[in-house]
């Protein structure tokens, strides 16, 4: 039985140039893009994806469980200067409960002259 032919040679570029072009043209100040520039941008994007993935895996904790996690990526954006332009779109995650506690603390810190009510607050471990 014959297998369907699959391309085994590495393709020069995998990302579709047409889609790359759409993204590039969404920049209002760009008039036109020559074919070589389009190709290079697509190829550079592939290299970037590989670099981001491998760097994050190498420096992150996901590999302890044989995985690449969102936290690894977010960590990279924060720690590595080259990837800092991604910081806004890869924010650190925070547990909702921690966030709520942060809000409460900010509120308490803002109220001047109050007794410290911490003794009355209990951590609800049963939630």
């Amino acid at each position, binding site marked *: 039985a014959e297998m369907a032919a699959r391309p085994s040679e590495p393709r*020069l*570029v*995998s*990302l*579709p140039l047409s*889609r*790359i072009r*759409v*993204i*590039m*043209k*969404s*920049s209002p*100040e*760009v*008039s*036109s*893009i*020559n*074919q*070589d*520039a389009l*190709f*290079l*941008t697509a*190829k*550079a*994007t*592939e*290299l*970037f*994806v*590989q*670099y*981001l*993935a*491998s760097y994050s*895996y190498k420096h992150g904790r*996901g*590999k302890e*469980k*044989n*995985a*690449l*996690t*969102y936290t*690894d*990526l*977010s960590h990279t954006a924060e720690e590595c*200067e*080259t990837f800092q*332009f*991604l910081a806004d*779109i*890869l924010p650190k995650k925070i547990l909702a409960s921690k966030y709520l506690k942060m809000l409460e603390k900010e509120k308490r810190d803002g109220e001047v002259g109050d007794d410290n009510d911490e003794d009355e607050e209990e951590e609800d471990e049963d939630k």
Partner: protein
Amino acid sequence: MAERPEDLNLPNAVITRIIKEALPDGVNISKEARSAISRAASVFVLYATSCANNFAMKGKRKTLNAGDVLSAMEEMEFQRFMVPLKESLEVYRREQKGKKEARKDKDKKADSEEQEKSREEDNEDEDERLEEEEQNEEEELDN
């Protein structure tokens, strides 16, 4: 032209494949991580385009060219991309040139098929002439 939000995304299957190529075999990539990398890639394209465009404007050009993109990479501190980019560009240019010439040959062939009939007649005359020439040469050599 208004783009739909999904048009600014890159195809998931391709992104996943590229990620897998960069990691050791068998490493799991969470959907969240994959999605984040895809978004990062789109942002990268925008950032690179904006940067390249600055170089084009400096050169008073309206069309982004290869040099602008390469300069952008350096500016963005991705010097490590320079060598592989330049090498692939060479291959790409050769491929494009080959395709162009293949199209030219295809056009030529189409034309020549139209003229096939008249050319056959010409060829017969040509053959006769060649034979005569050869005979003349032989005669000369003998002399």
